[in-house]
């Protein structure tokens, strides 16, 4: 009878780890092998005898029954009822113990089963490594993501995952039968701001894993302009632009857990469709907003704040003493970069187009606003730094600034190109980077929020920074949703400063 025993030490308090593992139906939130899981027959996941029925990412369905659960021993035991593998009489136990010396956790995972002799070795490896050890790694990764936030108030809503424990069986709200007619901005062909037309569209009832939102505030971002112009294929006409909004959940489809009617939520991601009064979308793209973050702040700051978070903490971790050059320092992302980089101890130089924008950038932590229309910004950076240059340049202007941004770099400097407001970049002369041992990055927003865990790690740190006042966001321009074209015109003509939102209703 093959036996497996695997164990590890997790750098987190035992109750924290138990909080994740105790949920017999929660493994689809953290285990990479599990696509989705549900408890059969409307039972609770902590009801001894309940059966979890889950689909594997690699295909196949497994049914497992909870045989024992102990909150005092922090352990549970379960058996396999049905599996696509010959794991007979499989009984497994998970147990946690505190490591009092250091506040860590011992996690043991063991099992016994019968199997055809010729397959035993293969199954021992599969279960021990692909399930148990992979599970250790996944929990570690979840916890390290959470470590960014001490508050832990943020929940990332996931379709079909969060335990039904909190709700009584059947409390998941079903969809209403009817579509809701509501106003939205529709693009029928690519073009200028004039192609943004106000129309009435239909928001269908939410399907499996979906929710329907009544949106209250919509963020306006430069990427919306690119989509409207057809530069990105995120929007295919006829379509509704926009990737950022906040609102309230109206209703939820089947297999949506952890989020329900009345919850305040926000999002900042494809697919497009945010320029609408009512929207139906996948629940697992949503972030539940903490009390301290208003709908308007979320609409104004989620996409920009997520961008600022990964630019300053992941693409190029800014440290105290760094010299940072921020292009469009008075823009939406620019202001956040100035505030946050300053808080991290960096010296911030920023390019701005007017004295008014210079004053705004300065008030947001930019020590040296440079009026790029009056002064060559690369020269200015060299003057300010005594010829050293900037350790990192955050450049979303693109074509017009790329070359000079390289010139403004210090030796070993890092040019982070994260947009192209002035047009697509020319091919980069890689050989030329050798003159400064320079690094050029082109981060893609989508890659940083590709998984709910990754998104949550970022929004945890972002909401914490908002909560503690490290950064602040406020919409500086508000337009009614129906007047999105005017908002785009102002954005493109560089009239706006800071964040712009579209307001819905009242």
């Amino acid at each position, binding site marked *: 009878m093959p036996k497996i*025993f*695997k*164990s590890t030490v997790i750098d987190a308090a035992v109750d924290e780890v138990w909080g994740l593992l105790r949920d017999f139906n929660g493994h689809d939130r953290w285990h990479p092998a599990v696509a989705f899981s549900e408890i059969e027959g409307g039972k609770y996941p902590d009801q001894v005898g309940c059966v979890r029925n889950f689909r594997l990412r690699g295909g196949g369905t497994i049914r497992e029954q909870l045989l024992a659960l102990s909150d005092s021993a922090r352990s549970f035991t379960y058996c396999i009822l049905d599996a696509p593998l010959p794991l007979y009489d499989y009984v497994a136990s998970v147990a946690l113990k505190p490591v*009092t*010396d250091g506040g860590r956790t*011992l996690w043991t995972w063991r099992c016994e089963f019968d199997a055809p002799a010729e397959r035993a070795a293969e199954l021992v490896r599969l279960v021990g490594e692909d399930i148990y050890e992979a599970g250790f790694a996944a929990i570690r990764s979840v916890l390290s993501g959470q470590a960014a936030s001490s508050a832990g108030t943020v929940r990332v809503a996931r379709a079909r995952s969060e335990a039904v424990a909190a709700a009584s069986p059947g409390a998941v709200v079903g969809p209403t039968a009817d579509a809701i007619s509501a106003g939205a901005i529709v693009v029928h062909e690519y073009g200028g701001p004039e192609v943004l037309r106000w129309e009435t569209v239909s928001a269908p009832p939410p399907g499996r894993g979906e929710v329907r939102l009544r949106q209250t505030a919509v963020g306006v971002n430069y990427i919306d302009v690119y989509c409207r112009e057809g530069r990105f294929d995120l929007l295919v006409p006829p379509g509704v632009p926009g990737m950022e909004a906040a609102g309230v959940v109206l209703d939820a489809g089947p297999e949506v857990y952890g989020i329900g009617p009345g919850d305040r939520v926000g999002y900042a991601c494809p697919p497009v469709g945010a320029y609408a009064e009512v929207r139906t979308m996948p629940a697992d793209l949503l972030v539940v907003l903490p009390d301290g973050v208003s709908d308007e702040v979320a609409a104004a700051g989620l996409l920009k704040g997520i961008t600022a978070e990964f630019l300053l903490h992941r693409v190029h971790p800014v440290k105290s003493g760094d010299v940072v050059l921020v292009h469009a320092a008075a823009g939406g992302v620019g202001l956040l970069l100035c505030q946050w980089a300053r808080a991290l101890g960096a010296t911030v130089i920023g390019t701005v187009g007017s004295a008014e924008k210079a004053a705004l950038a300065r008030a947001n932590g930019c020590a040296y606003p440079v009026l790029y229309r009056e002064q060559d910004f690369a020269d200015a950076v060299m003057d300010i730094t005594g010829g050293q240059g900037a350790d990192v340049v955050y450049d979303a202007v693109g074509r017009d600034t790329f070359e000079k941004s390289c010139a403004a770099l210090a030796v070993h400097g890092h040019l982070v190109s994260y947009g192209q407001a002035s047009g697509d970049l020319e091919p980069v002369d890689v050989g030329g980077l050798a003159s400064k041992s320079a690094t050029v990055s082109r981060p893609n927003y989508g890659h940083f929020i590709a998984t709910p865990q990754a998104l949550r790690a970022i929004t945890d740190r972002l909401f914490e920074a908002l909560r503690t006042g490290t950064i602040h966001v406020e919409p500086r321009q508000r337009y009614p949703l129906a007047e999105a074209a005017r908002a785009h015109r102002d954005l493109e003509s560089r009239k706006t400063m800071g964040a712009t939102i579209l307001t819905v209703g009242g």
Partner: protein
Amino acid sequence: MVKVYASSVIEAPPDRVWSILRDFNGLPRWHPLIEASRIENDEPADKVGCIRNFTLQDGGVIREQLLTLSDFDYVCTYSILSSPMGVQNYQATLRLVPVTDGGRTFVEWSAEFECDPGREDELRRQIGQGVFQTGFDSLKGLVGG
């Protein structure tokens, strides 16, 4: 009933740690509080039921009886027969669990006992920190971080 629990992770394989801990007469070799130890009646130290009679650095004498010894589960259970500590019905368990991830060893040491009311916190601290954690720290020094 007072309960004390302490645990740690030793950077050495469980067989190595167990080779030290399974010796019921071996406390002076690894625990800094213990001056000398002998097994009464010249019995072997791995004979379940044997009694170790040891002297503390401060001169106190403690007699403890081996109740369980498992080389299979890495468990040792014992009770105090007599001591200057003022505890009654004292029973303790020392247990190792292999950490397969990294070839390390989880070690836990727990005890249950009765004592005069008002002395619980003092004894819990004295035993948990003074005896158990001190033992862990010393073990780490012997066999690795």
